[in-house]
């Protein structure tokens, strides 16, 4: 039987149509160092730091700023899979992350932390990166669960990103499948400890280059 194979009309991928994402990529490439303060602020703080005795002021200011950052980490609610249930349990009254200063917020533009909770598929990865790019600096990311850490049980599937650190830089990895709320709380406390030692320049790590 002769059937002519149709050629399906393939529309362009959705995320290529957004202009601002491309603008943002260009902006990021122009600033490879990550987020820095303005040059004037930079030279001013450097001057104070190298003035005799001035380091007391700058390090005290650093400590204060990092304390402020640590005490109000707002995670964007980004639930992808079953880990999101545990994340919601962590946000809810029994475990109550609000006592740590964390308010689950439904907008990336007001958030400092992204908890990637669940399997990241290749189709979802550009959207995840887009949401991450919408968050203002300084920002952090927690990879929650085996799937987000390494692909987990779906690592040898055809459609799963083998670890979310191929898409965005990750600060804390929480193991487990899924991690219980205690585990995630431990990860969030570790993150707060990291933020305490956050550098003044705000320089961030690049996504891990992985080969397998």
């Amino acid at each position: 039987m002769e059937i002519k194979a149709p050629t399906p009309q393939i529309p362009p991928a959705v995320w290529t149509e957004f202009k601002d994402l491309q603008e943002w990529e260009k902006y990021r490439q122009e600033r490879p160092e990550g987020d820095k303060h303005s040059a004037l602020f930079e030279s001013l703080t450097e001057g104070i730091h190298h003035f005799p005795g001035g380091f007391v002021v700058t390090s005290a200011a650093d400590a204060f700023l990092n304390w402020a950052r640590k005490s109000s980490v707002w995670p964007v609610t980004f639930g992808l899979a079953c880990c999101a249930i545990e994340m919601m349990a962590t946000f809810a009254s029994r475990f109550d992350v609000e006592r740590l200063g964390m308010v689950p917020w439904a907008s990336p533009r007001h958030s400092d932390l992204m908890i990637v909770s669940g399997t990241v598929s290749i189709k979802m990865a550009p959207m995840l990166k887009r949401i991450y790019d919408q968050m203002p600096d300084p920002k952090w990311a927690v990879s929650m669960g085996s799937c987000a850490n390494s692909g987990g049980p779906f690592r040898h599937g055809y459609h799963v990103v083998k670890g979310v650190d191929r898409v965005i830089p990750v600060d804390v990895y929480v193991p487990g499948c899924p991690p219980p709320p205690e585990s995630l709380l431990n990860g969030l406390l570790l993150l707060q400890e990291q933020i305490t030692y956050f550098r003044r320049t705000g320089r961030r790590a690049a996504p891990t280059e992985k080969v397998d």
Partner: protein
Amino acid sequence: MSHDQARARIQERFGVAAEGGGPLLIVSVAPDRWVELATFARDSLGCLYFNFLTAVDWKEQGLEVVTRVENLDVGLALVMKTRLGPGETGCPSLQPLYEGADWMERECYDMFGIRFAGHHDLRRILLPQDWEGHPLLKSYAVDTPHPPYR
């Protein structure tokens, strides 16, 4: 109509004995009688409920399309199969007959690369539109790199 009568009518019309026991009928036909069998199942046997459509990759022997339709009033289930032959990817579409076949055939095209002739909107349904390859084929390597995220 009981399933024995349905069996007899299929034997009479298509010349194949239905496999399966009781109210489950399994009928294999050639691809050029595929639409005819589906029309017969819908109009004569009253199988109005389209259960699923999928495919099986038999490697060198080619692909096989499997469909199950049911007559819920008398409890009759008809599993229809067709072998496309080695290297064939063309198959007539059931979408004009059954509305339920629409997304099923799109998924089947997405996963197995079967081109359903006569389908009104044959696009990928689950994977991104720029995906290369059809993942549920046995010849598809699961670790195929897919830039930029793999």
